[in-house]
């Protein structure tokens, strides 16, 4: 188990990168604490798998260093780094039994059979696969195969980090939930540093203590699930996390105040950055309420999805989503929208530009 430091990491798949656009990863500085549960969240192609492969040593970064417990491992081969990785599609050794699959990483390292037996038995029990130990791995269902893949990652006690690369992609929805909570439980029992890569916010937010959100090869924000939800540092995070995502409303900034469709919108606090370039107001649908007075909008679409309703209203030419409890208004109805000021923020060129009031 180890603390992992990424220092000034950059990577390009091109031999002679010229501009920032040639980089799949643009300058990443990160510290992952020993024993933490991290998620790397971002859309497809944001560079998260590249980052993962750099940590595991399957890829050598163009620039920068990787440190495990302050020791430089940048040039170390994968098998020398003592890491474990679980892939998107289950990787199992078809001809072996489940037991032999789980024992494989230990036997390759010449551990004696007594220890192998002890570890395999313990891991099998944690994953609820004890009854399958003597079954040929090829005959398992996809979710059990993925469990075995995970088991092989967890069977060694001394690994520096266990990485999961979208491990639930091939799993049926109702089993996803089970495996996800299993993973969380495993992390609590094993206390290894774990990094979980996904583009699914639910997976990231349920698994991780700290979520690293990436977009276009950059780390956009690092924070607890709650921080990401409540104070997105970038409109991308606001939009990407939450369902529906944050309302991002183009606005004008005059005299330290924001105006949306001509109306002054109270913000959470002072504007701390020069509000130049593209300015937008960000407010989550959860903090938009319908009332009898306030900004006027016409309902474009509304849906009652059980415990709450989602309303989409057009204010001028901009769409604003609101989550309301109780009944939802009909399409075409005129509604009045109010933003909760302490949850309304200003973004300049995408980045958060207001500070929370003390």
């Amino acid at each position: 188990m180890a603390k992992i430091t990424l220092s000034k990491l950059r990577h390009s798949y091109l031999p002679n990168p010229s501009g920032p656009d040639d980089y799949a990863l643009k300058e990443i500085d990160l510290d992952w604490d020993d024993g933490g549960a991290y998620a790397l969240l971002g859309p497809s192609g944001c560079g998260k798998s590249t980052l993962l492969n750099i940590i595991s040593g399957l890829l050598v970064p163009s620039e920068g260093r990787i440190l495990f417990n302050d020791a430089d491992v940048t040039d170390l081969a994968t098998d020398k780094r003592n890491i474990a990785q679980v892939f998107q599609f289950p990787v199992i050794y078809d001809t072996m039994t489940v037991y032999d699959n789980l024992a494989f990483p230990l036997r390759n390292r010449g551990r004696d059979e007594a220890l192998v037996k002890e570890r395999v038995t313990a891991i099998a029990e944690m994953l609820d696969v004890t009854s399958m130990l003597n079954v040929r791995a090829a005959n398992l269902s996809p979710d059990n195969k993925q469990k075995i893949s995970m088991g092989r990652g967890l069977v060694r006690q001394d690994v520096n980090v266990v990485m999961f690369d979208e491990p639930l992609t091939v799993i049926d929805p109702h089993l996803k939930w089970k495996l996800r909570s299993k993973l969380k439980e495993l992390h609590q029992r094993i206390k290894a540093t774990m990094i979980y890569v996904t583009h699914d916010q639910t997976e990231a937010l349920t698994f991780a203590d700290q979520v690293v959100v990436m977009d276009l090869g950059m780390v956009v924000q690092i924070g607890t699930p709650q921080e990401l939800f409540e104070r997105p540092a970038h409109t991308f995070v606001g939009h990407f996390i939450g369902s529906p995502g944050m309302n991002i409303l183009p606005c004008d900034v005059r005299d330290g105040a924001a105006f949306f469709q001509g109306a002054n919108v109270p913000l959470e606090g002072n504007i701390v950055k020069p509000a130049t370039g593209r300015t937008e107001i960000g407010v989550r649908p959860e903090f938009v309420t319908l009332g009898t007075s306030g900004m006027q909008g016409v309902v474009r679409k509304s849906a009652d999805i059980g415990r709450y309703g989602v309303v989409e209203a057009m204010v001028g030419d901009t769409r604003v989503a609101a989550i309301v409890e109780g009944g939802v208004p009909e399409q075409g109805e005129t509604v009045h929208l109010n933003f909760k000021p302490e949850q309304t923020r200003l973004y300049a060129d995408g980045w958060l530009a207001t500070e929370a009031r003390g």
Partner: protein
Amino acid sequence: MKTVNQKAWFFVLPVLLLVAFNALIPMMTVVNYSVQETFGDNLFFWEGLGWFEQILRSERFHAALGRQFLFTGLILLIEVPLGIIIALSMPKKGFWVPVCLVLMALPMLIPWNVVGAMWNIFTLPDIGLLGYFMNHTLGIDYDMTQNPLAAWITIITMDVWHWTSLVVLLCYAGLVSIPDAYYQAARIDGASNWAVFRYIQLPKMKQVLTIAILLRFMDSFNIYTEPFVLTGGGPGNSTTLLSIDLVKIALGQFDLGPAAAMSLIYFAITLLVSWVFYTLMTKDDT
């Protein structure tokens, strides 16, 4: 309630006719010959299973069958491991992939009798490139028209040259279908190169390898043209494989009854070995 539409049978009819005329009917004529004796004039007499008994007791048949198994066994022992090794060493991507594939496919594109003729000329002691080099440069007495061992080495080398590519291409197809994640996982699991081959590559190649061995078994067990053009079965009977012997009996001696019985036994052996092999190889599959 499912409605059964019997009209579908009409769609099978063309295939049925085709198979009947190109396989079943010719085969039935062979069956017909195998139980009869003729002295010409299209007069046939019932012979029962006599010809089968004669063939099965014939030392000539035993010898040809032995040579056939030796030949097939040897070429499989060489072509399968060699094919796997070549497939493993071929590049997986880049400029050299098509180059290698074309080079591999070339020998298989050459007609069988041409292969025989090529190797015949190639190995002639006084004018063939290989024959001349062996006899006159290295001073090794190499003449496959005189020496049975030289003849055997030549037909086996020829078959390896002609058909190893088939094993290579099939294995290669199996290898490139293995996702990268398997190799990455193996590296993370600390697997040696041998373990990667044994537990990832070989199992993933198993199905294509089964087909490759089956095809090579059937083709080499029925081989005729190449050794016939190359050695004509000689020197003596040393390279007279089953099919060469069969043609000698059927068309040389015009013994239709024994030849027909031998064909059927020959066919049964090929079928039996193929079936047993295929069943054994696929019995673990789910």
